[in-house]
């Protein structure tokens, strides 16, 4: 606080001796790097998708095979968001409120899907749920496999979003509700859940965006059958391979648009719910 007062009294820019020149330079380097690596390539995708006019763009994204792939992607992503919201919250609750031997190991394993290469994730799921399944559950090359792989790669998002909030939630509120005679279900629904909702929604938004674009974990386990188990990113890959970059770019733009839209929508929901939690 005292230091803040000091900045007010001292003349501007004396505080940190970074001349205006170096500020502009560092800002320029950051913008340049971001442009070369991310923006220019993405602009090329947008440009290429519209290269042959809007008619071609529309045709590319309304091709039956493309529609089937996008529908499968969106529906599976919605399914895994719902499952993640429930299971992620449950896992976070168990990891924060429960005590059992091995809890710390389980806790650190949650991050494994972030550390494990996606192709390895697909291979591991195939080893347990593939054709030669040791437990006799074969899901390979079905739509269930799409959901399974997406659940694997998106597991940490909701758990890691909810955990810190749950740690900070004031237990006294729950105790007060209990002493007033509320049932556990009631306490969960009316006291705990409203506090957790913004974190759950934030985790779900990230999981949804990740699921829309997922590729590596799906390649081996889904079989990539058009009109059946082919997701959007696999469809785009196929279009690139068959030398149709304009149509690949068009579907890419649509996919990009969907994930940005989802992030924005969920952003709004999270603002709304945090306002209503108070």
């Amino acid at each position, binding site marked *: 606080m005292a*230091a803040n007062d000091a900045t007010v009294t001292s003349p501007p820019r*004396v*505080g*940190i*001796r970074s001349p205006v020149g*170096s500020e502009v330079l*560092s*800002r320029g*380097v*950051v913008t340049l*790097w*971001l442009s070369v*690596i*991310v923006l220019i*390539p993405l602009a*090329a*995708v947008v*440009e290429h998708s519209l290269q042959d006019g809007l008619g071609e763009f529309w045709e590319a994204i309304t091709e039956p095979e493309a529609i089937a792939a996008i529908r499968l992607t969106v529906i599976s992503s919605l399914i895994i968001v719902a499952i993640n919201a429930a*299971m992620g919250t*449950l896992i976070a*609750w*168990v990891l924060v409120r*429960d005590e*059992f031997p091995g809890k710390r190991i*389980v806790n*650190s*394993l949650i*991050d*494994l899907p*972030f*550390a*494990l*290469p*996606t*192709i*390895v994730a697909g*291979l*591991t*799921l195939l*080893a*347990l749920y593939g054709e030669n399944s*040791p437990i006799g559950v074969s899901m390979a090359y079905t739509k269930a496999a799409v959901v399974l792989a997406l659940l*694997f790669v998106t*597991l940490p998002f909701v758990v890691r979003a909810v955990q810190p909030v749950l740690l900070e939630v004031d*237990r006294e509120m*729950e*105790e007060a509700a*209990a*002493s007033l005679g509320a049932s*556990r279900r009631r306490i969960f629904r009316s006291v705990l859940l409203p506090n957790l909702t913004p974190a759950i929604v934030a985790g779900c938004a*990230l999981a949804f965006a990740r699921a829309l*674009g997922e590729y590596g974990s799906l390649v*081996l386990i889904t079989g990539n059958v058009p009109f059946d188990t082919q997701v959007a*990113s696999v469809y785009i*890959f196929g279009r*690139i391979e068959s030398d149709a*970059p304009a149509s690949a*770019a068009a579907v*890419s733009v649509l996919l*990009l648009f969907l994930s940005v839209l989802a992030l924005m929508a969920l952003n709004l929901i999270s603002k709304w719910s945090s306002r209503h939690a108070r």
Partner: protein
Amino acid sequence: MRGDRRKRPARPGAPDSAHRVQRYGLRVAAVGYLAALLIVPVAIIFVRTFEDGLGPPIDAITSPEGRHAFWLTLVCVAVAVPLNTIFGVLAALVLVRQKFRGKAIVNTLIDLPFAISPVVIGLSLLLVYGIDGWIGGDLQEAGIKVIFSTPGMILATIFVSLPFVVRETMPVLQEVGNEQEQAASTLGASGWQTFWRITLPSIRWGVTYGVILATARALGEFGAVSVVSGRISGETETLPLFVEKQFANFDLAGAYAAAIVLALIALAVLLSMNLSRRKERSA
């Protein structure tokens, strides 16, 4: 009941047996879900790899192709991660300490690689650096090959691992504030000295955490690299691509062996994540 609770405020209602059953049920559901989805599949890969002894997996990864794939993976990581670390720390400093027009846009754009499909990332590089791309033709004439060769794969790796260091460094930088930096510069330290002696030491665990995450992502990137590499065996094949190819060629032992190498690296990453997080908390 109520009196009981007042005596033990830390665990409301803990002694009641219906509650214990409920709690046990939740625990079993959570751990069971994790086991089915995560723990058992990963364990099975280890069992499958070594079920015929150590010979086959070792042969598979010490083959010339396997060794080359491992080497190429390391090259991509060794270029991409340091570059992203420098960019990440610089970008975090710019976004936290400076005010300028368009800051919110830059802040949003940095997250884009998280929201984009790896395949689309690969396509975007193809459309710039490919033979029919924006500058690919000119580069080709100048004798520089980007797509279907190592530079393109490095670019893809940089793209996918770009946000990690920025995102992990920014909150730490915000938290430490700039009072110490101001003190240092009033005492006559140059901007460079202040950065090395004050700023960097105070954010080092945040940066470390970001570097670990970026390394994990860079090592395992599949989709983007797959598009730009052309997957030429022994030339433009990284370890994740090698896994897919061995699997497609029905060489399960080879696929599992390479996957195990990647999985072991992932476990090492996990361990260092935990360590650096603990250091960060205690720092």
